[in-house]
């Protein structure tokens, strides 16, 4: 018994007997047999109960008029396929009338019809009721199994259907609704052709035929879904073969494999991409010409993607002008090499490029308006494109672009490939540019090295020489093969080579620069003297990576120096000899004049003595001349270069004053001076300058005035300015430069005796110490001699 209030409809028997007490009687009978029943007052009531679900129905004959049967048929038709509702019709008695039979014929396909004659026997009623319930219970089992099956199939993401021999869907799972957007009820009854479309059917047709011949088949195809997306599917047909061996239809399983396909494709493409990029790297690795690298990349990328054109463009620093140096074009497509303005391609495109965003356009005609760059793209025959900008440090520097003359769907894989290639191309092109720049600069260096008048070479850190300039080969008359490495030893003087090697090895071990003078044998077999300098070339870490050596031909210079040295020696010698040989006759003249006078004794007249005095004066003057000339000649020839000696000008001046002291005292002269500095130079020689100047100042004094001489000093930048000023007779300023010349005099010998060498000597001495001497004078006022001398370098 079902609990009161809730009826177990799966065991509920409904009763409809509108006339008499039959209904009540039946209800009582069934109740006694512990069977659940319910009395319906009208046919409508009965139909309502059936629609809600009942186990069986008992209806009297008289209740089933034509209208009632019509209503009941409608309800029964809506029952599931599993349902065959037990329907017990209680006839009036005896054989059912023809009329009732005809009416009941309509119900036969819809229910499990049983006729019972009245009057009703209680055991017959109960038995019929139990039979009906048993039959209904079996139906419920079928219903349950069917529901379970439906539940399973509905929840599988696979299209499952049963298709009959006429290729009509007999049964489909819920997935059909999800896929096609058509209620499953609507799908049932549709043909394969009508549901899936012509294209699919054309593909599936042979497999359907196969399935209907009893073969299990599987194939792949494509199917539009309700979103009008074409999806990849895997289709299996399993034939339904009856006991008699006849094929009644087949079960179709249609599985969406779009994702799997995509993954497989992606994997395949990714493999291809890696392989492609590898090949690209390989093809450009050894190349050093950027334009060749560009050409190869464009061709390989263009062919790989099957595009009409592939171009790499360099963008100028203004981010506006760009140049396509070389592009790949498929047959029938024109090259687009040239220089363009980026802004001609529309502001949107420009913005994407400068922001570093890849632009992929499927159909230029549809997606780009003329004034948004579309006209420009079309003008160079671009129907679809992918363009990848290369932005480095916020600057657009290059673009890589693939074009298709017709619209084209670019896959993510393809755009990704163009991006990767663009990035790598830049790296490859920059690498080759850098290499070619290095090569160019090396070429420039070698050209330079071949142009210089020096012999030059480069060695590895271990001293192995790998390059010589052309001058080396020209001079030595050798060949690269003979010279490579350590072959240079052959052009050395074997006497000197050990010393060269020792010094060179020292440099190699310590990294210190090498400098040495040694002879090298020329092509003609004669040796010339070279100054050799080798400098280490270090890397950033300070390690010696190269040696760069030069040989400067100093043969002529050395010979000149040697000749000069010899000439100086000879001159020195000459000066001594000259002084000796010139003075000897004078000594004889002088001494024998004196001996003459001595021999004459009292016989020598005053006139004879006066003559003798002239002889002596001439001799003395000659002696002074010889001495001064000797002094003059020795100034420049004393040594090659001024040495490191220091001259204390204070001491030099004191010495000079001392040497003219007699005349200072005789003339009551006043000599004053500032504190004097120490300068580079020879104290004795610079003292000689002071002595000459003081001597002149005293000699050319005014007869009626106390001679005043002042030596002052001023610092002028790196020089000292020393002036020797007097209040003497002075001279015309235009004579100022003339008086420093050899033998130049302003006065007659008998007025002011002199050799005309004093100031020339001063000039030579001052100039020897890189100084300058000049004079300022005014007749009757006095003269000032100015000397500029370099100070000590550390001052």
């Amino acid at each position, binding site marked *: 018994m079902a609990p009161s209030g809730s009826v177990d409809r799966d065991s509920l028997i409904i009763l409809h007997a509108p006339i008499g007490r039959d209904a009540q009687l039946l209800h009582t009978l069934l109740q006694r047999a512990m069977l659940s029943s319910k009395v319906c007052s009208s046919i409508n009531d009965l139909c309502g109960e059936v629609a809600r679900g009942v186990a069986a129905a008992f209806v009297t004959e008289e209740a089933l008029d034509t209208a009632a049967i019509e209503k009941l048929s409608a309800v029964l038709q809506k029952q599931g396929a599993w349902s065959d509702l037990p329907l017990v019709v209680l006839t009036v008695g005896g054989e059912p009338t023809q009329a009732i039979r005809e009416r009941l014929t309509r119900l036969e396909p819809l229910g499990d019809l049983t006729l019972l004659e009245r009057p009703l026997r209680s055991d017959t009623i109960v038995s019929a009721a139990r039979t009906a319930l048993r039959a209904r219970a079996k139906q419920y089992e079928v219903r349950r199994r069917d529901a379970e099956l439906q539940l399973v199939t509905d929840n599988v993401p696979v299209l499952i259907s049963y298709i009959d021999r006429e290729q009509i869907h007999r049964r489909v799972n819920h997935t059909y609704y999800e896929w096609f957007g058509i209620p499953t009820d609507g799908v049932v009854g549709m043909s394969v052709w009508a549901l899936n479309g012509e294209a699919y059917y054309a593909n599936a047709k042979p497999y359907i035929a196969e399935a209907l011949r009893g073969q299990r088949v599987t194939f792949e195809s494509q199917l539009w879904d309700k979103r009008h997306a074409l999806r990849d599917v895997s289709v299996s047909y399993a034939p339904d073969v009856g006991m008699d061996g006849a094929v009644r239809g087949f079960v179709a399983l249609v599985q969406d494999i779009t994702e799997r396909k995509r993954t497989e494709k992606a994997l395949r493409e990714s493999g291809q991409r890696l392989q492609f990029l590898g090949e690209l790297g390989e093809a450009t690795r050894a190349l050093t010409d950027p334009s060749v690298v560009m050409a190869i990349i464009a061709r390989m990328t263009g062919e790989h993607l099957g595009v009409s054109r592939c171009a790499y463009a360099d963008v100028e620093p203004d981010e506006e002008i760009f140049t396509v140096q070389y592009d790949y074009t498929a047959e029938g497509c024109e090259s687009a090499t040239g220089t363009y303005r980026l802004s001609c391609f529309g502001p949107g495109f420009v913005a994407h490029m400068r922001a570093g965003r890849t632009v992929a356009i499927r159909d230029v005609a549809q997606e780009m308006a003329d004034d948004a760059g579309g006209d420009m793209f079309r003008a160079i025959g671009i129907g679809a494109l992918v363009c990848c900008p290369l932005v480095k440090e916020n600057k657009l520097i290059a673009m890589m672009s693939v074009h298709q003359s017709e619209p084209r769907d670019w896959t993510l894989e393809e755009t990704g490939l163009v991006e990767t290639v663009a990035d790598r191309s830049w790296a490859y092109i920059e690498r080759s540019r850098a290499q070619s720049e290095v090569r160019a600069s090396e070429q420039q260096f070698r050209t330079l090295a071949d142009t210089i008048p020096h012999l030059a070479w480069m060695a590895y850190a271990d001293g192995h020489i790998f390059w010589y300039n052309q001058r080396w080969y020209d001079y030595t008359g050798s060949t690269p093969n003979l010279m490579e490495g350590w072959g240079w030893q052959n052009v050395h003087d074997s006497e000197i080579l050990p010393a060269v090697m020792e010094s060179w090895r020292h440099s190699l071990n310590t990294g210190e620069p090498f400098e040495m003078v040694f002879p090298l044998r020329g092509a003609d077999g004669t040796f010339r003297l070279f100054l050799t300098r080798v400098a280490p070339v270090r890397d950033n870490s300070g390690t010696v990576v190269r040696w760069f050596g030069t040989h400067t031909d100093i043969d002529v210079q050395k010979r000149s120096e040697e000749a000069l040295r010899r000439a100086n020696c000879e001159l020195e010698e000459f000066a001594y000899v000259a002084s*000796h040989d010139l003075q000897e006759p004078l000594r004889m003249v002088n*001494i024998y004049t004196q001996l003459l006078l001595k021999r004459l004794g009292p016989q020598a007249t005053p006139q004879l003595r006066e003559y003798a005095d002239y002889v002596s004066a001439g*001799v003395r003057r000659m*002696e002074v001349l010889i001495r001064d000339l000797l002094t003059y000649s020795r100034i420049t020839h004393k040594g090659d270069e001024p040495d490191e000696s220091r001259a204390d000008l204070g001491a030099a001046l004191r010495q000079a004053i001392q040497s003219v002291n007699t005349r200072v005292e005789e003339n009551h002269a006043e000599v004053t001076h500032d504190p004097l500095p120490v300068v580079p130079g020879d104290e004795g020689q610079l003292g000689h300058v002071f002595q000459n100047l003081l001597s002149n100042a005293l000699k050319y004094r005014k007869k009626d005035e106390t001679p005043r001489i002042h030596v002052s000093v001023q610092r002028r930048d790196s020089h000292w300015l020393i002036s020797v000023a007097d209040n003497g007779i002075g001279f015309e300023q235009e004579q100022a430069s003339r008086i420093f010349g050899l033998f130049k005099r302003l006065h007659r010998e008998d007025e002011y005796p002199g050799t005309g060498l004093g100031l020339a000597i001063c000039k030579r001495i001052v100039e020897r110490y890189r100084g300058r001497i000049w004079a300022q004078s005014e007749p009757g006022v006095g003269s000032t001699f100015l000397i500029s001398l370099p100070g000590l370098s550390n001052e």
Partner: protein
Amino acid sequence: MNRRLRIFLAEDNAGDVELVREALREHHIDYEITLARDGMAAKNFIERVGRAPDTPVPDLLLLDLNLPKAEGHELFSMFRQNPLCSNTPVIVVTSSNAPKDRERAAALGAAHYFRKPSDLAEFMELGSVIRRVAAERGMLRAEG
């Protein structure tokens, strides 16, 4: 003791030879001069000295450094190498004032380096130098 001083004079300049004689006379030195007027003659003398009767070992050598046909210092060395003359005093009489001449003369043990002056009185001083050198070796009294 006061005897005649045997002097070997190597001097090419006749004027100077006469001045040397004058200086000796002025200082009252009794002398006997063997003269060589050039380097070759001086060499011949030095080779023969002490070996022939006509070439006795001199008491003093007066040597001009600047002689024709031979270097003065070379003659000086030759003279010193002759064992008979190794202790004979040598006075260098020269017009050279070159330091290297002075140094070499000192190195060879010259008794005096007399630079020829251009004043007569100063030249006469050579006489007193000769007397002093001879006196030091006991050949003459210190004062004539």
